[in-house]
């Protein structure tokens, strides 16, 4: 008997479902960053607003990258519904705390998919996910460095102004 399931798609049902969940998480991230950009802009933090607009675009690209991979492998990608987007923060610092929390959650989520790929010996998807693991290194680094600026520069006096001016300069340069 032909393996029609395999002929149709390289992805198992479980991995396809996990990837679709990840599509949703990336879409959610993109929306949250957009919301953070709005908050920063209306509170006078222009540098940070720019930073979050860029992050939001990146997350959208991540979403599409996974979305297209599912389709390319013969699967069904699902356009996600994005709800529960926070749009208010009590302090400037809290925005960056949330940003780091979010990146950590995304890294953990990728680790979970990778673990499943190992279990199923889906080395093709594993190789595809390597790009994201690498990307998460940078995402976490940048989010962590941004939050550290609050310690390094300090929140007194013109601290917020300095932090905002320096957010855009954080670069991850490792190979």
């Amino acid at each position, binding site marked *: *008997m*032909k*393996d*029609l*399931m*395999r*002929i*149709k798609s390289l992805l198992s*049902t479980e991995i396809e479902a996990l990837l679709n969940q990840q599509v949703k998480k990336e879409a959610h991230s993109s929306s949250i960053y957009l919301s953070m950009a709005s908050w920063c802009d209306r509170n006078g933090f222009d540098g940070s607003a720019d930073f979050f607009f860029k992050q939001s675009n990146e997350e959208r690209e991540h979403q599409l990258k996974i979305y297209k991979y599912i389709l390319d492998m013969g699967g*069904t990608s699902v356009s996600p519904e994005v709800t529960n987007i926070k749009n208010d923060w009590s302090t400037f610092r809290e925005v960056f705390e949330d940003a780091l929390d979010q990146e950590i959650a995304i890294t953990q989520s990728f680790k979970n998919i990778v673990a499943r790929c190992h279990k199923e010996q889906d080395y093709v998807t594993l190789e595809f996910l390597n790009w994201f693991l690498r990307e998460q290194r940078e995402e976490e680094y940048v989010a962590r460095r941004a939050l550290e600026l609050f310690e390094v520069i300090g929140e007194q006096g013109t601290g917020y102004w300095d932090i905002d001016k320096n957010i855009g300069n954080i670069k991850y340069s490792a190979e």
Partner: protein
Amino acid sequence: MSEQHIITADLIEVFITSRGGIYQSDVENCLYLNFSGKTSRLSFSSLNDLKKIIDKVDLGHMCTLIEHADIEIILIKDNCFVLSGLEIIYLKEILDGAFAMFGLNHIITDCLDRLVMS
């Protein structure tokens, strides 16, 4: 339209119960679902879609409906299924069985594919 297809000799039995069954045609790369007096020709992905829908049906909620009680209408490509709560249970059993067989067939095919031919 689907009723015109007659189950022919090239069909492989995937999973059957006393209520119906699923057969595979390796010639046509498709599946035949024989259920409640009707035979439907479905692609693998359509059958997969049907399973996803059936798995999501809330039987408890279905039974409590006052109007149109106990009826679920499912459209998959050219096929329309009008199912009672009981039929959903029977169909679910067939689909679960068939997908377990697809999974098993996949494992076997995968093992054979990996054998080094000498």
